[in-house]
């Protein structure tokens, strides 16, 4: 198969999974949020065609789907990098120097906060409190939490992800 064909078949498979999610939740009160969450887990983000599929599947107006998807910071409307970095900017982390860590991340990755690196490897986000204040400052890369960070550690931590694909 060519690259395009592989991509197309992957996409078709993703939409098939989405259809299953929708049919299992259809009629449930307040189903839109959980469906969007599962859609994001399947696709990695919720682009317009996915929103359209959800609107049609759940029989809710597309404006409502778009309204909800844009209201909550968890939903991404654009594709994200292979690894998601969430630098905690909660109060405890902030008073312990989280901004310096974030600046270093931004410098090392040559990428602004809220954006994805050119090689598509990392998306750098500043997040709300991760609730690991005992280890401040902390960041999460995918599901892994890194605590008691110093700016000097950042390059070493990022190196661990450079050769590796997201699981």
């Amino acid at each position, binding site marked *: 198969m060519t690259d395009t064909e592989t991509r197309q078949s992957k996409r078709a498979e993703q939409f098939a999974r989405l259809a299953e999610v929708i049919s299992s939740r259809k009629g449930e*009160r*307040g*189903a*839109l*949020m*959980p469906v*969007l*969450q599962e859609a994001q887990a399947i696709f990695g983000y919720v682009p317009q065609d996915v929103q359209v599929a959800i609107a049609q599947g759940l029989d809710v107006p597309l404006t*409502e789907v778009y*309204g*909800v998807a844009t*209201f*909550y*910071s*968890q*939903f991404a409307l654009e594709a994200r990098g292979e690894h998601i970095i969430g630098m905690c*900017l*909660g*109060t*405890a982390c*902030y*008073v*312990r120097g989280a901004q310096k860590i974030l600046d270093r991340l931004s410098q090392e990755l040559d990428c602004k906060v809220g954006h994805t690196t050119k090689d598509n490897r990392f998306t750098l986000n500043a*997040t*709300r*409190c*991760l*609730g*690991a*204040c*005992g*280890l*401040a400052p*902390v960041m999460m890369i995918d*599901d892994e*939490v*890194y*605590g008691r960070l110093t700016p000097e550690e950042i390059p070493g931590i990022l190196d661990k992800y450079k050769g590796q694909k997201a699981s």
Partner: protein
Amino acid sequence: MELFRAHVLVCGGTGCTSSGSAALIERFDQLLASNGLAREVKVVRTGCFGLCEAGPIVIVYPEGTFYSRVKAEDVDEIVTEHLLKGRPVRRLIHTDTASPAAPTSLNHIQFYEKQRRVALRNCGVIDPENIDEYIAFDGYQALAKVLTGMTPEGVIDQMKKSGLRGRGGGGFPTGLKWEFAYKSKANQKYVCCNADEGDPGAFMDRSVLEGDPHAVLEAMAIAGYAIGANEGWIYVRAEYPIAVKRLNIAIEQARAYNLLGQNIFGTDFSFDINIRLGAGAFVCGEETALMASIEGRRGEPRPRPPFPAVKGLFESPTILNNVETYANVCQIIINGADWFASMGSERSKGTKVFALGGKINNTGLVEIEMGTPLRDIIFDIGGGIPNGKAFKAVQTGGPSGGCIPASLIDTPIEYDSLIAIGSMMGSGGMIVMDEDNCMVDIARFFLDFTVDESCGKCPPCRIGTRRMLEILERIVEGKGEEGDIEKLETLAKNIKATALCGLGQTAPNPVLSTLRYFRDEYEAHIREKRCPAGHCQALLRYTITDKCVGCTACAKACPVQCISGKVKQRHEIDQSRCIKCGQCQAKCRFGAVVRG
């Protein structure tokens, strides 16, 4: 139940898990098996012990030996020395500043001595993924007592007598809330749990859910019986994966034992619980916004009345309580309202959990009796400020609260006393700040948070907080003007009076409280273009004094090559090119580079 001669409790809270506690459990299991101890010693992954700073934490019972910062390679020694030969490994035992001689049991550690654990009683004691352990610690006894021997009115009466007030921030009397919903006539009612812990720097609800999830489920069932609801909803942050997983396990186990489901304890009371994940919106901590979000809509608040007790989730009467509030309910039922009311102070009964963070030695989770002075928490339990720095302020109540200055450190922790000094109890975040923290920048930080999290529905919050943030940003950048303070005060007053929901109404508090106690810092920024704490980058100036011996270390470290000078002669910084990174100061071994 099998009997073991020793128990190894390994903290599985988020803090210790991040510090590597999962690898410890694996290593313990391996080594206990290879040493033939698997049937004698049991390893339990518990919830949070509270002292996250010292994680990962391992406690060995029956002695109660408290090991801190344990690494996987230390496990061998604990197994061969302590568990095989009965000799605790002294070098790993936790010591604190007050008791440098390693205490033999956790009861002698100062961090725990002044605490009183009610809401956290099972956290760090039981395996949260095993319902039998919860039951062994009186679990589901309160529900049995309520269903088989109490009327709904009786339950509400106990809650009212206990004096329990909401632990999520507002401090509304819980019994009264239940009574309103009880009196609303409807076929369908709901019990909701607010686990959307959004205050930055607060993680007590997370720890309760991770360490003792059944306590919340049981209390919700009791609330259901009291108000006449058979369906519960827990709204929990998606950012808390461990808590979500343990809640799901707990619900499954409770259903399997018919402690949730149809005809609980053979009575005609039925109750079940659903989980809904949040999606990263702080405003969903507000009750009407939370319910809108469960309904699958944008989490925007609506005006009240009607209050949720009359018209809440899916238009039905609903009560919403916070996780920590629920964590107190079963204890009140078992031990009685008088027992609970005997703790705390006149108008604030019981205990409160705080997440202690920031510039403090013992960061972590503490539970104290209401009325305890702030000083006890910060200096006795918290162990004071690290690196010999001076204590400057403590922030409570998150973005809705305020900064309490060092001069008010003897204030007792109560709902009303904290409001009187311009802060609030909030959900329990307590962030300690030292002399290096700039209070104007802290106010800016919180406004930045509020602007980001404002849902946009009402103009005072959407536009007003943004105007306040713009002024604060100007001030910390050295572009503040005369009149800025007065503008901030006017905006604050108007936003407080006119915003739709609690988020907006309290958003100006961090600015008002810092203005009240640290006005001179604002004035220094505006008039002298100076940051007294030496924090605000734009106002910083690095200079080299005559202590300089001309070693050239600073010039080599400078990333923009703006330091000039000959070897063995005093160097100089070109202020026009300096980016204020501070690397010269970090490199100087003679204390010749000063910041100010």
